[in-house]
């Protein structure tokens, strides 16, 4: 009956109490759950699950190196994290047992769980965790996601085998959320001492599966960790995983991936596209898992650093000029509920403001007239002082799925009725980053996955308008508002959960009411799987599925 694997039980009340103190209780999101009802049957041990990923094959299986979502997907099978989220979306300790923070927020003490071993026999202890953090912070590792998550750690001290003290440069209210991300997963310190090449080929963790081999461009072969012990007892089963092995394949073509699922060649596919999800809904044999990613919602950012969007009323006019709902309905077949928040619905602290985003061409027209864009040229576009109301919109073809690209084209069409000339440029990832770096955009859509509301600081703090050495910057609406910075800074360092919630809500209200962004929907993360694969639905804190409790029916 329990089709979602809860990672914590009510028995584990001590941990739950700590978690409740750390995370605001009571507003957990609906956790990812299969669309089907109960799955009857007795679990069967054995069998090989074939997983087909549509993502680019990772170049390294250790998510410490670089740190992207495809790495997180596969690594969630063999690596585990210090913290995780349970079925209700509550942050709970996992490889960690407990954590406390000093009054000034600068000393974080981590208690590491005892009796857990990595699959190479090395024991998990405080020194192992320290070795992992050092590995992440070492420039040689070239970690980007994990490196940013640990950026506030100034020094570390192993107090005893189970206690690690972290001294922070500034208080960090999102540190435990960071610890729940697979990019900061804990690996065997013995294995980390190998060369990066060896570690990339077969990272060693504590998870229910382990990497057996990796044939590039073909498959990563994972086998069951026979000695697996769940750090926290769950309502699922004990001991090792049901599945003997997982074959992790890479099938880049969406249509081929779905055909492989239909023909039984594979049992689960990721990056399922809206049309195939709709098609699968009509079958009895294929089921759907919708697991929106945490962090930011998918949204269009309005570049406020230059004309015409340096004028707030033009931003507001654009938002009322585009008919988002109608387009999403027709292009996503009901698979993508509309968002009105900068944060994903998977974030307990998401704040929505639906009333700001109504499609209202009359209001758009009024605002544009008042802003001086009252004349129209021969083609019907608005003009001011001889300049056309043109918006450049670089779109990354690797980050925006075809349905999203079509959505942008439909928004372009409705914006034209109000006199906006939206110029969509479809670009490869390198060229797309090039346009952003040159500030050659008025509109842009970029995903951002991170656990917790601190993603708001990444996206909207004025510090994030300063490019990294590579030219990358995350504040693409280029909001520079000292009062917003202050809200985000205080929220990021407070120990008071109620205050944190209030400050992050205020910050979200501010960016929404400033019309810096147009929220679209959650970051889409759809899986389709064969009905023969049972007990699918458990995910990590970043919404990557885990298959500890899954089994293959005969």
């Amino acid at each position, binding site marked *: 009956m329990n089709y979602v694997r809860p990672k914590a039980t009510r028995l584990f009340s001590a941990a739950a109490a700590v978690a409740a103190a750390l995370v605001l209780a009571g507003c957990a999101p609906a956790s990812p759950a299969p669309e089907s009802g109960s799955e009857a049957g007795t679990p069967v041990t054995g069998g090989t699950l074939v997983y087909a990923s549509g993502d680019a*094959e990772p170049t390294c299986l250790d998510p410490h190196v*670089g740190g992207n979502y495809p790495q997180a997907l596969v690594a969630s099978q063999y690596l585990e994290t210090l913290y995780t989220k349970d079925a209700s979306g509550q942050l709970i300790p996992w490889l960690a047992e407990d954590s406390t923070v000093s009054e000034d927020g600068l000393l974080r003490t981590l208690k590491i769980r005892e009796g857990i071993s990595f699959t190479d026999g090395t024991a998990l202890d405080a020194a192992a965790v320290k070795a992992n953090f050092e590995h992440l912070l070492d420039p040689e590792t070239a970690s980007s996601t994990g490196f940013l998550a640990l950026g506030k750690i100034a020094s570390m001290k192993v107090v005893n085998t189970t206690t690690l003290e972290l001294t922070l440069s500034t208080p960090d209210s999102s540190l435990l959320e960071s610890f729940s991300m697979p990019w900061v997963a804990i690996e065997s310190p013995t294995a980390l001492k190998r060369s990066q090449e060896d570690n990339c080929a077969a990272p060693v963790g504590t998870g229910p599966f382990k990497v057996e081999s990796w044939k*590039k461009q073909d498959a990563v072969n994972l086998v069951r960790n026979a000695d697996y012990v769940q750090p926290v007892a769950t309502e699922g089963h004990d001991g090792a995983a049901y599945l003997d092995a997982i074959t992790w394949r890479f099938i880049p073509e969406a249509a081929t991936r779905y055909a492989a699922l239909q023909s039984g060649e594979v049992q689960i596919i990721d990056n399922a596209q809206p049309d195939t999800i709709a098609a699968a809904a009509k079958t009895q044999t294929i089921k759907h898992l919708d697991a929106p990613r945490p962090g930011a919602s998918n949204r269009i950012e309005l570049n406020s650093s230059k004309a015409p969007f340096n004028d707030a009323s033009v931003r507001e006019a654009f938002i009322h000029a585009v008919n988002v709902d109608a387009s999403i309905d027709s292009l996503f077949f009901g698979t993508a509920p509309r968002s009105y928040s900068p944060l994903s619905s998977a974030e307990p602290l998401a704040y929505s403001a639906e009333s700001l985003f109504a499609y209202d061409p009359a209001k758009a027209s009024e605002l544009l007239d008042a802003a001086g864009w009252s004349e129209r040229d021969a083609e019907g576009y608005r003009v001011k002082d001889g300049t056309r109301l043109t918006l450049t919109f670089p779109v990354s073809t690797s980050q925006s799925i075809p349905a999203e690209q079509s959505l942008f084209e439909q928004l372009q069409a409705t914006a034209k009725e109000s006199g906006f000339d939206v110029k969509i440029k479809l670009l490869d990832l390198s060229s797309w980053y090039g346009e952003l770096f040159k500030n050659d955009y008025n509109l842009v859509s970029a995903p951002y996955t991170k656990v917790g509301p601190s993603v708001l600081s990444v996206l909207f703090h004025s510090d994030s308008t300063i490019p990294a050495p590579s030219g990358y910057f995350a504040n693409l609406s280029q909001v520079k508002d000292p009062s917003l910075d202050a809200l985000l800074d205080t929220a990021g360092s407070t120990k008071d959960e109620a205050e944190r919630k209030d400050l992050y809500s205020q910050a979200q209200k501010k960016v929404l009411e400033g019309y810096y962004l147009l929220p679209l929907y959650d970051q889409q993360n759809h899986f389709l799987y064969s009905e023969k694969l049972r007990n699918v639905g458990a995910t990590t804190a970043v919404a990557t599925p885990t298959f500890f409790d899954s089994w293959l029916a005969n």
Partner: protein
Amino acid sequence: MSTSTISRQRLAPILGRTARWVLGKLGGGIFVLWAVATAIFFGIRMIPGDPAEAIMGGPGSQASAEALAAARAEYGLDQPLYVQYFSQLWRLATGDMGTSYSLKTPVAEVLGELIPPTLVLAVLALVVAWALALVLAVLSTRSGAVGTAIASGLEIVSAAVPHFWLASVLIMLFATALGWLPPVSTSTPAGLVLPVITLALPLAGFLGQVMRDTMARAQRSAFALSARARGESEIGVLLRHSLRHAALPGIALSGWAFGSLLSGAVVVESIFARPGLGRSLLSAVTARDIPLVTGVALISAAAYVVIMALSDIAERLADPRIQAS
């Protein structure tokens, strides 16, 4: 005038001609490889973005300044462009293709793994295309105007079909609807069937068209007439005399055909999720993995040069008239 009595004087000019031919081919081949290496070296630098970023995990990496600087120094990207260009040429000339930015393994090693599956795919597709084209040419020539019209229609359609469309239709038909064949490449021979057919059909269309034209012309020619006069059966004339003629343009086209198979492999390997040169070229370009892109392009160009030379030789063997001219 038997060939067994070739004298010294007659052999020398033939050897000289052969040597000149070999040297010409070799020089042409080296020129092609140099041109490819140069075009790629400068072409890939026109794409915006920093190659050091590609080393540090691809576009949009949040690598630190120190990490980027270290990567630039390690891969020589801090040198002036002309220094990079000439040292790149020198390395390539000495057989060192460098280390892949994204895979962090030597390009030669990566290519060693990727060439066999692509070669198997391309060679099988070439063989199947040849077989289909010949069968179609023989059958249609035998069956008169209606047969010719049908065959010609089939050839035009299959030659015009894009690979990705054909692949999708074949998957829908044979994998999804009928369930006979796997939609993705597997280790079993069954997994090769759809990719090979996808590559072979358009090529068979091209080859079939030229072969049938030549065969029809040969059937009407004087030597066919004299063979018939000698009492040779109609099928005998076709197989023993006209077929050889029909094969000539096919052989000449095979060099070009092999090139088209390599470019087709980019699409087919991606759709059927097959490991190989084509698929890795696509991911290498996306990741701006300059050494790997260069490696794949050079290997493809080298294969093209070799196949062109081979088809030249085959053409000479099949048609003694070429030697004489």
